[in-house]
């Protein structure tokens, strides 16, 4: 039995195929302007690459902020449930998940069976999300993929205290004007995300082991900052960005 999970996020759309309980294939594309098109495109691409046709797919679950625009999915399930299922698949021992995606961040506590026990999400503000990092990368003229490695070389992380993306950007710009080094600014940005997300996760009471999922988990600087702020080691799977899609594909098995 083959099932598919489609995770249409605000920045990227992801798809995963699960065959007989094993991960068969994955695909990531840029969501762009039209969430509906992104869902269709990632669906077609993953099938083409896997050499499958739509009739071979037993069930499809859509997740992510664009989940309701994936009209061909059998069901839409929120990212919270899907990330929990995906994390449980990647490592059944995991008891907490921190997911930082393009437009929101969340902390999820799992029970022994890997089901969601409780969750918390960021407030409306974009600070502490992938979009926040993108804004900062633009202000600093640095490729976002280099953020993690650059921040690890910092010797004195700058202090970014603003609670708002727009204000934090002006803070970063004034740090640049003062001649603060890029690596220290970037490390400061990661620390500010770490503090914010750790505060949210702290309310839930994070249980170990903790796994970080979502696209921002690719940024080692954020992961390290979160480890410091939460005081817990955090594991990151190579499949971090695909966790939601994998979870959705697993949920599709029960459709």
């Amino acid at each position: 039995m083959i099932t598919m999970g489609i995770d249409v996020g605000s920045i990227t759309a992801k798809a995963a195929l699960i065959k007989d309980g094993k991960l068969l294939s994955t695909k990531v594309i840029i969501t762009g302007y039209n969430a509906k098109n992104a869902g269709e495109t990632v669906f077609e691409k993953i099938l083409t690459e896997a050499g499958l046709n739509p009739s071979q797919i037993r069930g499809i679950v859509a997740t992510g902020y664009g989940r309701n625009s994936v009209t061909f999915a059998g069901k839409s399930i929120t990212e919270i449930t899907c990330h929990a299922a995906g994390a449980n698949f990647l490592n059944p021992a995991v008891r907490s998940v921190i997911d930082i995606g393009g437009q929101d961040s969340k902390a999820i506590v799992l029970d022994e069976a890997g089901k969601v026990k409780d969750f918390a999400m960021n407030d409306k503000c974009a600070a502490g999300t992938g979009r926040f990092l993108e804004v900062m990368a633009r202000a600093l003229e640095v490729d976002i993929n280099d953020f993690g490695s650059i921040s690890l070389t910092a010797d004195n992380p700058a202090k970014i205290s603003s609670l708002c993306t727009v204000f934090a950007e002006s803070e970063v710009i004034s740090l640049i004007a003062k001649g603060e080094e890029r690596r220290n600014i970037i490390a400061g940005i990661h620390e500010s995300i770490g503090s914010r997300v750790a505060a949210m996760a702290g309310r839930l009471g994070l249980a170990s082991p903790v796994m970080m999922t979502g696209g921002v988990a690719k940024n080692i600087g954020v992961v390290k900052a979160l480890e410091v702020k939460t005081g817990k080691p955090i594991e990151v799977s190579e499949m971090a960005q695909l966790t939601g899609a994998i979870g959705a594909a697993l949920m599709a098995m029960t459709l």
Partner: protein
Amino acid sequence: MTSDARTPDPEKEKRKIKSAKKMKEIMTSYYIEAKTAEQTGKKVAWITSGGPVEPLLVMDIIPVYPENHGAMIGASKMGVDLCEKSEQMGYSRDLCSYARADIACSPVNGGPIGGLPKPDMLICCNNICGTVLKWYEVQARYYKVPLFILDTPFCHTEFSDEARKYVRKQVDEYIRFLETVCGKRCDFDRMAEVGKLSVTGQRLWQEVLDTAAHKPAPLSAFDAFFHLALIVTLRGTQTVIDYYTGLLEEMKERIRSGIGAVENEKYRLLWDNLPVWYRTKWLSEKFSSHDACLVADTYTSAWCGSLKYIDENDFLGTMAEGYSRIYLNIGVDEMAETVIDMVDKYDADGVVMHSNRSCKPYSLGQYDIQRIVQEKRKVPTLMIEADMVDERSFSESQIETRIDAFMEVLKAR
């Protein structure tokens, strides 16, 4: 099966509360009376929602509630325009949206009823928040009318004798203020009657809310948000008693006929904080789509929550305590106890908390209340961030995800 858009859905019709039509008529005539007060020679007082309205009725003054007006502005989706107007006038976006909408309404007679009637006096009781002090001062300057402030000390854990004396003394000052403004004496026999009517009205409102303890609940918090207007605006009149007597009978009839507010009620939830006035329909449908009914809320029950402190045979003597110990003027521990009692009474499966950007006293202790309720009753709680009137603080996709995820958690339990 054919469907005709013009034919009302019988399922929906069945669930409609029939009394609502009467309620709309009452509110309409109330506002007409208030708006024509100048012609009829009656005086109008603007008063805060938690303020002691009974002495106004005794003095034949028409009470008008800027907060009820604020709710109407929110429900008519006119909040953003008025909030922006107030910001142009120089008020911060961080201020309460009721205050902003009301202040902006005055110079332009804006809002769904073309503004409130001009006040002859303002009565401000700070048992609900501190914002009302500055808000009413602003309006007193604008309308050049006298302002009476009734200061209710915050009841952290108890209501001390000093506090009782302090508030009781102000009640006397309040009556003297009204006598001066109206140029006539207060009729204390009438005061006792109005006090009794007020208590009877509050008891009936509590009884109406209590019917939701039945499964399925005959009314939801969304219905309560609507029917609340009477206990707020006409408390102390026979009209309230007559209306709620009818509403209570209708609720009992619904219980007998097994009619629930939500078609397939499977999950029973509690709501905390003010409604999101411009999204009540959306939220109601969202929860219904998950077979969830908001069976009770801390907001509408705030207008009968301090009944236990009031002696109907000594209204004037006990109202100081009754008006001081309302839900928003007590410590977080007591608020949490209230929520826990409601979880038990209504057998709620979860609690939905609206973190309301406008209402600081309501939203301040919510994380603590959430933690206490989760520890003591092990029911899941959901926090959603919005604002009661200012739609700019509402993000549909984020709130939808939170509600959907919360319901997934509840269903998986």
